[in-house]
């Protein structure tokens, strides 16, 4: 199994974290660092999962940890492009109904900027 690749890029007011490849406990530390870097640089994070081919509950725990911390600090955390076939744990644990999930990064960014519009 090749190691997954990560990238952190700003887009608008958000930080987009892109993951390509397979996520398990061997890549947990790097995945965690990546999300920490993103939330260190801004309080809006979009995690692009469209390139994820495998995900287990250790990866899920990393995601949930960052989501909770970001939201508790008043930030926004969203998932984009998660493909059911490769990320079943999200649905089986019911987290897909609690985490904000979008089909594409653009959808997630649009929702995030809508949320910040002055009322």
């Amino acid at each position, binding site marked *: 199994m090749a190691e997954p690749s990560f990238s952190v890029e700003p887009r608008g007011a958000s930080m987009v974290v892109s993951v390509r490849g397979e996520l*398990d406990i*061997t890549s947990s530390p790097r995945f965690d660092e990546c999300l920490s870097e993103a939330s260190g640089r801004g309080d809006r994070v979009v995690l692009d999962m469209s390139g994820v081919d495998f995900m*287990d*509950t*250790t990866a*899920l*725990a990393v995601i949930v940890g960052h989501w909770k911390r970001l939201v508790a600090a008043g930030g926004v955390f969203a998932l984009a492009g998660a493909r059911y076939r490769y990320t079943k744990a999200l649905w*089986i644990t*019911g987290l*897909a109904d609690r985490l904000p999930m979008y089909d594409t990064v653009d959808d997630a960014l649009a929702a995030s900027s809508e949320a910040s519009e002055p009322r």
Partner: protein
Amino acid sequence: MPGTAHDDDTLARLGVVAELQEALLPTALPVLPRARIAARYLAAGHERSAGGDWFDAIPLDGGRVALVVGDVVGHGVAASAAMGQLRAVLAELLAAEADLGHVLARADAFAARTRALRAATLALAALDPATGTLRYTTCGHPPPLVIGTDGTARYLEATGTGPLGTGTPPVLAAGALAPGELVLLYSDGLIERPNRTLAEGMAELAAAAADATGAAGAAGAAERVCRLAVERLTCAGHADDITALAAQRLAEPVPVLRLELPSERPSLTTARDAFARWLSRLDADDDDAGALHLAMVEVFTNAIEHAYPREAPGTIELDARLGEDGYVECLVTDRGTWRPPDPADADRGHGLMVAGQVVDSLLVRHGAGRRETGVEETVVTLRHRLRRPAILASGLPAAPPARLAGPAFAVDTSMAAGATARALVHGPVDITTADRMARRLLSVSRGGTVPLVADLTGVTQLASAGVQALYAVSEQLAAHGQELTLITAPGSAAHVVLALVQLPCVAWDGR
């Protein structure tokens, strides 16, 4: 038939027949360590021929498998329903009765008592892939074809008895498959060609099948034979249902996997690589392989993280085999002291739950080791039945007629007070949308941990893929002791199909 116009009524009837057939035919074939099985089924698009062809591949004890193809006289809904009955009776008899002669005698008697089944034809072959012995019968049905490793094809001798229920009791004959050889059962739709005799049709089938095996003994031969023989013999159109069911006796059984690795994180990568390679040799479906792989990773990771204290690591064993019953059994063993998961670690600890949900069963056993007395060990056993899809296709025209236009597919979900999940399903639930429906239902019911009410009154079509998805969701809920309530409009297609497949539903009368 090309050029035949179908009116709305005909299409409605054909649609029901096609759905019934699909719901009653096997959609999955067993995957066994010593035999590869494949099937193709093509329903005729002509109203007068739809319904009646059927097939099944039933694992028997001792790694044997019974292959069956039959044809019920008549057409339409009555034929499909009769076919479903015979299939169910035969499967039950094969499971309950060891003597094949008795099974056939009783099936014959059942057909004699059931009007719609009189003169139904049947070809049955019970294969023991370990020894290659074949016991078979042809009841008014053309004989099975055996394709040798040298690419030659020979028909087994027909056993000479008439169709079921006509007073000639079935007779069994013996045959043999050498390692690597293949046996093909088929319906007469595959050998009845316009302007050709039956003998010519059979010769054409033999040639097509022999060509298709190519280098016989290569993996995938059963699949190739079914696919290519059907394609070649139907390229000019077909008036009748077409069924092909093939089994290849493997020259080498699937091997066992056995690994012993240190309880550290890099071992997971080693285990994953080896397991993935092993799974690919099984001819497992992508879904089954994916489920087993995810479950193994969760269980193995759990052992790495929790089996041994950091200062005293140990080893973890991974054992996997494909049993003669078609189940993969995967064992992860450690010799550490079992520690219950830390309740403070609420975000972890989902691993075993997820593993248990994606495979058929997960069992944890702690206790004295099998090999070394006095040493405690924990064994987590995953069991999962492998299935390969049988390809079913309908001869209906590809463009959907106007009557099928209606609400687009959608699932609206909400969480009602009292923590019951609700879902409202609209539109067609077929092979293109069933998966999405299942995901939404699963998610709103929090992985099956809260009860779910699914309102299907807006469903315009419920195909077999939809039925299977509902079964999967109901199993998930049942595993958590939660209830699934399905609501359908009385008299609707969805209501009829669910009643037929015994998924309980509540009729909503509009109040």
